[in-house]
Structures are given as structure tokens and as C-alpha cells.
């Protein structure tokens, strides 16, 4: 018997409730003190097709999914066709007994079959839409998981629909649970059992980022829907009244970023969120924020490009674009969180950085990170630990005391000019997208003023550099080979390192989250002690590897790149480690 160490995969058509079932089961697991990593995969369509939700469960913290599946919950036959070969030894399939399934083939492969009259139970007890409830019940039964956790989630999810709906669903779940347990539990080796544990949240990257942002003082979000960033404006909008936000679904992404710039100029912490295509439309205004030194937070949730690409698939294809977007040269900060904790952290830290350095801050996420759920300790999401630092924003009192002409773009040692908000008689000024004087007047010609201004702006980055975080080292100090990754590669690489070290190898891992500006010296120093560096990225050209070479001179020795739209997994990395990966200029 293998306890609390398995992967469950729920598959079905778009519209069949794969996502809600997966999320529900995940919550039930977390409430039982278990750790999980949940990965959602959906197609770019509204109905039909094939979606799945894969949940890895463990009693230790998880950072990635694995490719092996132990229990497959099939809401339609395609789920079985597509995923049967992922099923591990001893694994099985739960499905409605009326589903048309090629028993012989599956049995031959040694896969256990767990047909259950899901629809029948649902219809007999309630209505047929409760078949998913039945499926969850049956799954819990077969794994002998504590029914109460399933019940508590059902109660929470249906409470708005009234006690009767709750009761019927509970009844449906219970019946399926009992049947599953009775018929199949004895034949299934993978079990789930409640563990005593501190409170944990189940959250994905998008939502973690939202929490960080609102707690970090964000009060204005303007955006235009774009997969996979849409949940950000949606979460913010549905919580706007409650938390005193203003959100605006604007006419396009250009308006979205411009509105955020306007709101920030007026003094409100403002952000926009989009994916690569929408970001492309924001490029001009990004430079405006740079030139006018307006704080701005832009979340870019990458998906597989180029162009419309694969809208629901993952990729880290926009790194170099983010660092170089927009004409001319201006300071910016690029953060690439790699876990939900880091998303939360980036969510509020970005606002501090934006205000301290009066520049745009880009948070670079991706489909995989945005949509993957993980259990995290509530203490790691310590809401009270959020720090607020508005940098050199002049207080009302400070402004009251100003006597001479206020210079919005005063030349200072740090390059940071004390910032006043519009509305006070002592600090009337113009923010100017042309090159300008210290007090914000157009200065399109003077070479000396120009040099001063260019240098002033870049001095800010030298200050910022000091608070950029160097990469985290995971694993032993010394190793035969060192993985280098950034952003969402964190989980899969971390798990890979664990497996390698458990297998007797000596590997470690440098995980980068603060991408730009890059403290070159510190990084070069870190790289000096490495033997063989393996770059891992979800793109086809090894963008981070190029970036690292640009600033440290160090060429990555070997690259593992994935660019098929699928997230990296420990298995993928381990396989590629043996065969060697590809690389395009």
C-alpha cells in the first residue's frame, strides 16, 4: 500500500466541469492536511475538445507535477485514449459504467478498471449534472480518503444554492463513495489519508499575484482580457467593491496601460495585466512610463507564441522582449517569480520597486505558473508581512513646506527625484514624454541637458541593483552539475535535483527571479564555482542562457529546452539529460 503519494488526473470535454471538479478535489485534499500540486490543461475552445486537471498528492511539499498517473478519472472516452499510457503500474481508471471503453486493451496493459454508475447515482438521487459530484465521491471512496473532506467542500461550494442542493449533492457523493470503496478499494493500492498539518491554502500563480497586489496597496487595475492573464482582472473586478478597488476592462490594451499610467500619475498604485500579444500593444506606453518616470506595474503572463500561437499552452518565450521592449533606453525592472509564494511576493514588491525607482516594473509569469495550484502554508503567505514603501513620494506636509519652484525631475545623486502628486499649489508640474528639463519643460535639443537626464535616469538602476535578489541556490553547495532556471522552471527543476541527489548524483540549482537589472558581479562570482551548467527553459532559443552570457560572459554548457507548449516536468528534464537537448540561435 502506498499512502499519500499518487497522481490523480481528471479529464473531460470543455464544459464538463473538469476545472471545478479538480479544484474541489484539491481543496478536499488540502483540508485533509495533504500537499498537492495541481496542473490544469485546457484547449482554446469553449465546449468540447479535451481538458484535464492533474493533481499530484503527497505528505511532503510538492513543487511540480509528475508525468505518471495513478488514478485517471475519465469524464469522456477521449480521456482514456489520450492518457492510458501515462498510467503507472497498479494504477486504474474511474469512469461511468456506460462509457464505451476498450476493456481488453486496458486489461492487457494491466490497468485496473473501476466502472461506476455515476450518472445513474446522480439521476436517481438528484439531477444528472451531479455526476461530477458522484465522480469525486467515488474517487475518494476508492482511495479510502476521509469522506468528511469531500463533504466540507461540497457544503462550501453549494451553500449559495440552498441547503437542499447541498444535501442532495452530499447524498450523491456519499453513495458513490460507498460504492467505490466497497467495490474497488481492496484492489487499489494507492491510498489517501488525513494528516495533521497547519492550515494551508490552495492557490495558483494568478491568484497569488492578485493577493500580493491588493495587499501591496494596488487600488487600480485596467486591463483587457487575454488568456492566461484574464483571471487577474476578473479576480480584481469581482473583489473590487469589497476591497475598494477600481477596475476597468478597457477598449483595448493600449487604453489599459494608459489608464494605469494615468492613475499612477495621480498617485494611486495601479497595474495592468496581459499576455504577450496584449503586451505588444503596450510597448509604446511602457516607454512613456519610463520617460515620465511614472511608477507602473505590468503583469505579463506568457503563453506559447509567436502571434496568437497556442493560446492555452505554456512557454517562456518573452524574456528578451520584456527586457528590451520599447524604443530608446530607460530603466525598468523585470521580476520572474517561480512559485505561488514568489508570485505573492512579487505582487506587492513590484509596487514598492515601481514607486521607489519611479519606473515600470514587469512581472513575468506564464501559463504553467498562472494556472498551477499548490498547497502553501498560510504562514508563507503571511499577509501581515507585506511591506509598503512608497519611496521618495513627498508627503502632503513636505509639499506644504516647499517654497521655491518644485522640480519634478530634479537631478540627484541617486537619480531619484522626489515625487509630488498633482493637486497641490506648490508642486504644479508637467510630466513630459519628450526629453525635458528638471522642471519638466520640453528640451528637445540641448545636448548637456540630455546627457544629464539620461545619466540621472540610469543612476536609479544602480541603486535598484543593490536590492535585486541574487538567485537562490537549491541543493548542495558543491555539485557536479548546476541547473540554471528562471521563473516557472523552479518547481520541475527543484524536483529533478531532489531525484538526482536521491539517486546518488550531485546536482544543485540556481533559480533566478530578479531578472533585470542583473547584479553582474555577484552573479559572475556565483557562477565561478560551478562545474557544468545546464540551462533549463521553456522556449526554443534559450533566452536566459543568452542573457546570462551577455552579462557574465559565461556560456551555458548544456541546454534543456522545451517548446511544445507543455510544461517542463522532472521526467522530461531527466530524459533530456540523457539524450541532450536542441538549441536554435
Amino acid at each position: 500500500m502506498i499512502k499519500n503519494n499518487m497522481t490523480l488526473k481528471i479529464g473531460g470535454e470543455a464544459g464538463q466541469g473538469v476545472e471545478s471538479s479538480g479544484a474541489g478535489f484539491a481543496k478536499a485534499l488540502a483540508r485533509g492536511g495533504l500537499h498537492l500540486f495541481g496542473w490544469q490543461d485546457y484547449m482554446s475552445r469553449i465546449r468540447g475538445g479535451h481538458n484535464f486537471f492533474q493533481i499530484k498528492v503527497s505528505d511532503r511539499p510538492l513543487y511540480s507535477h509528475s508525468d505518471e498517473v495513478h488514478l485517471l478519472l475519465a469524464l469522456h472516452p477521449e480521456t482514456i485514449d489520450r492518457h492510458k499510457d501515462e498510467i503507472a503500474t497498479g494504477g486504474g481508471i474511474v469512469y461511468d459504467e456506460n462509457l464505451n471503453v476498450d476493456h481488453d486493451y486496458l486489461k492487457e496493459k494491466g490497468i485496473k478498471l473501476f466502472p461506476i454508475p455515476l450518472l445513474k447515482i446522480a439521476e436517481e438521487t438528484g439531477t444528472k449534472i451531479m455526476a461530477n459530484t458522484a465522480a469525486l465521491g467515488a474517487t475518494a471512496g476508492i482511495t479510502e480518503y476521509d469522506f468528511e473532506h469531500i463533504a466540507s467542500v461540497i457544503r462550501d461550494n453549494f451553500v449559495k444554492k440552498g441547503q437542499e442542493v447541498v444535501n442532495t449533492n452530499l447524498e450523491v457523493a456519499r453513495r458513490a463513495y460507498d460504492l467505490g470503496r466497497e467495490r474497488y478499494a481492496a484492489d487499489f493500492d494507492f491510498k489517501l489519508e488525513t494528516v495533521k498539518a497547519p492550515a494551508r491554502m490552495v492557490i495558483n500563480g494568478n491568484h497569488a499575484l492578485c493577493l500580493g497586489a491588493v495587499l501591496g496597496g494596488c487600488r487600480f487595475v485596467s486591463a483587457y482580457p487575454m488568456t492566461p492573464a484574464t483571471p487577474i482582472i476578473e479576480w480584481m473586478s469581482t473583489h473590487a467593491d469589497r476591497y475598494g478597488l477600481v477596475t476597468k476592462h478597457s477598449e483595448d490594451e493600449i487604453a489599459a496601460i494608459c489608464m494605469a499610467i494615468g492613475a499612477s500619475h495621480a498617485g494611486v498604485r495601479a497595474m495592468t495585466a496581459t499576455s504577450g500579444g496584449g503586451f505588444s500593444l503596450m510597448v509604446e506606453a511602457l516607454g512613456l512610463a519610463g520617460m515620465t518616470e511614472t511608477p507602473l506595474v505590468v503583469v505579463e503572463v506568457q503563453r506559447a507564441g509567436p502571434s496568437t500561437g497556442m493560446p492555452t499552452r505554456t512557454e517562456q518565450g518573452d524574456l528578451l522582449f520584456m527586457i528590451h521592449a520599447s524604443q530608446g533606453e530607460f530603466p525598468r525592472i523585470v521580476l520572474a517569480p517561480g512559485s505561488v509564494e514568489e508570485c505573492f511576493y512579487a505582487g506587492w514588491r513590484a509596487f514598492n520597486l515601481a514607486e521607489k525607482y519611479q519606473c515600470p516594473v514587469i512581472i513575468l509569469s506564464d501559463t504553467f505558473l498562472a494556472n498551477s495550484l499548490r498547497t502553501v502554508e498560510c504562514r508563507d503567505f503571511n499577509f501581515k508581512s507585506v511591506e509598503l514603501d512608497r519611496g521618495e513620494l513627498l508627503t502632503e506636509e513636505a509639499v506644504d513646506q516647499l517654497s521655491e519652484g518644485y522640480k519634478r525631475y530634479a537631478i540627484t545623486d541617486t537619480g531619484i527625484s522626489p515625487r509630488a502628486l498633482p493637486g497641490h499649489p506648490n508642486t504644479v508640474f508637467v510630466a513630459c514624454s519628450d526629453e525635458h528639463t528638471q522642471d519638466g519643460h520640453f528640451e528637445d535639443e540641448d545636448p548637456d541637458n540630455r546627457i544629464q537626464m539620461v545619466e540621472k535616469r540610469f543612476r536609479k538602476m544602480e541603486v535598484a541593483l543593490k536590492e535585486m535578489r541574487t538567485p537562490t541556490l537549491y541543493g548542495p553547495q558543491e555539485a557536479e552539475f548546476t541547473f540554471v532556471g528562471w521563473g516557472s522552471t523552479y518547481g520541475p527543476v527543484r524536483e529533478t535535483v531532489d531525484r538526482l541527489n536521491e539517486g546518488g548524483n550531485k546536482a544543485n540549482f540556481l533559480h533566478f527571479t530578479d531578472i533585470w537589472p542583473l547584479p553582474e558581479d555577484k552573479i559572475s562570482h556565483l557562477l565561478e564555482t560551478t562545474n557544468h551548467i545546464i540551462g533549463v527553459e521553456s522556449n526554443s532559443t534559450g533566452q536566459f542562457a543568452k542573457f546570462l552570457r551577455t552579462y557574465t560572459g559565461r556560456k551555458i554548457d548544456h541546454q534543456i529546452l522545451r517548446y511544445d507548449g507543455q510544461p517542463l516536468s522532472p521526467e522530461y528534464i531527466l530524459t533530456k539529460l540523457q539524450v541532450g537537448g536542441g538549441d536554435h540561435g
Partner: protein
Amino acid sequence: MANIKDYASPVRSTWCVGCGDYGILNSLKQALVKMDLEPHEVLIVTGIGCGSKLPDYMTVNGYTSLHGRPIPIAQGIHLANHDLKVIVVAGDGDTYGIGGNHFIHALRRNADITIIVQNNAVYGLTKGQYSPTSPKGFPTKTSPPPTGAIEPPVNPIALALAAGATFIARSFSGNPPHLTDMIVAAISHQGCALLDVLQPCVTFNRDHSYDFYRQRVYNVEEEGYDPSNREVAWEKSSEWGDRIPIGILYMVEGKPTYEDQVTTLKSGPLVKQGLRSWGESDYEALEAEFT
């Protein structure tokens, strides 16, 4: 009391002698003084173009932004601080050309900002290409003879009406008293106000000179025009030729502004609400959502 001198700027204008933008600048200052607004109570957002340099030539809060984008920037500012009078001043290229989409959507949502268009029917700053309001046949380097500009001009009045504007006016920079009145009316209007100003460009558009307009413009108010009637306004919108109507061409009062309807703003300007303070119950609610 606001004083015209408060609005003076140390910067010397770069506009051509005789440019219609001077009239707009002067009337704008007059209007703000008339309304007893001080420079710090006003914020002027401009695009890029000759006229968009205006904030540099007065002392006022300003944001000289991007070609075509002052309207969304202004909306963001006003949503964040609706105590400020937020005024967009921009060219015809800026507003009806590259910025056309923001224009129609700001009007539709009745964002509480004022849009003053320096309509010289040409691209001034880039030296004389045809603009969306240039007449058909207008010869420029991007619309050379024999055809000149192929497109008929945009009709901003009609477009605004169709977009759902609640205030539409036209004035002429060669008629300062009228222009001042119109600016006052536009700023006073609750909701999105469009003021299209006929602005002679003495360098690149000799056809639309002061004389051209002086001979043609007439004040609709003097003819007992009723600006509250949408059908009549539609008809009026196509009047262009020997007679060009100026004045308030359409106005409907009492329609809620966008800002009026945003729940969070009922507690006052967003910026004055500060960074929200978070209490235990908030933390619990947030946590509960994910546990």
C-alpha cells in the same frame, strides 16, 4: 481668486506667428480664471502635435503624453483623482486619427473629462500631411495630386453623437469670447464633453485660414438653436460649407458620468482613500477563499 497671471509660463512658445493655437491657449486660460480654477486644480493631458505643446506654455498640471493616447491617460487620472478637472487638449490627428478608438469609447462611457480638439485639418508638427479632417482632394506630400486626399473627412460632430456623447460643441480660435464661453461650458458639463475648435494652421493649411472661417462661421445660439434635440443635432452635424455652425451643438444633462457609477468612488477620490488599511477580518476573508 484665480488670476490669469498664475497661468503664465516662463517658456516661449514655438508655434508659428499667427497659429490658431495661441487663441486656444489664451481662451483656455481665460476660461479657467472665469471658473475660478487654480492651476493646481486642473490637469491638462495632451498628445503629440504642435498644439499638444500647450501645457508647456502655461503653468498648470500637465501630462504631455503620446500621439493618440491622451484620452485613456486622462481617464486614468480622473478615475484616480476626480477632484481634478481633467482636460484633454489634442490635435485632430491625435483625436480623430490615431486616437479615434479611445475617442468613441470615452464618449460612450461618459467619462467625466473634457476633450478640446485643435482641429487644423492637417498634421502640423510632422510638416503638413493630410489629416482625418482634411477635405477630400487636399494635396499634401502623402496625398499628392492628381487626387489629393481620397477620403472624405471625418465628421467629428456626427461621430461623437453616434458614440453617445452628452456634450458636443464647436468653436473657432479666431473668436476668443465665443471660444472662452465654449470652454467654460465644456468643462462645466458633467460627463464627457467634446469641443472641436477650428484652428487655422497658417503654415500648412492655407485653405482653412482665419478669413475662410470668419466668412463662414455663425453662432447657432443666435438662431435659437435647441441643442437638446438629438435629431436636430444630427442634421446640424452635416452642415459644412458656406455656413459652418459654432456653439453648443448637442447637450444632454443629468446623465450619470462613468465615475458617478463606480461604487468605490462613492467614498471620495481614490487617491485620497490612500493605501487601504487591512484588518483581521479582511485577512480571514482572503484566506478563507483559498482554504
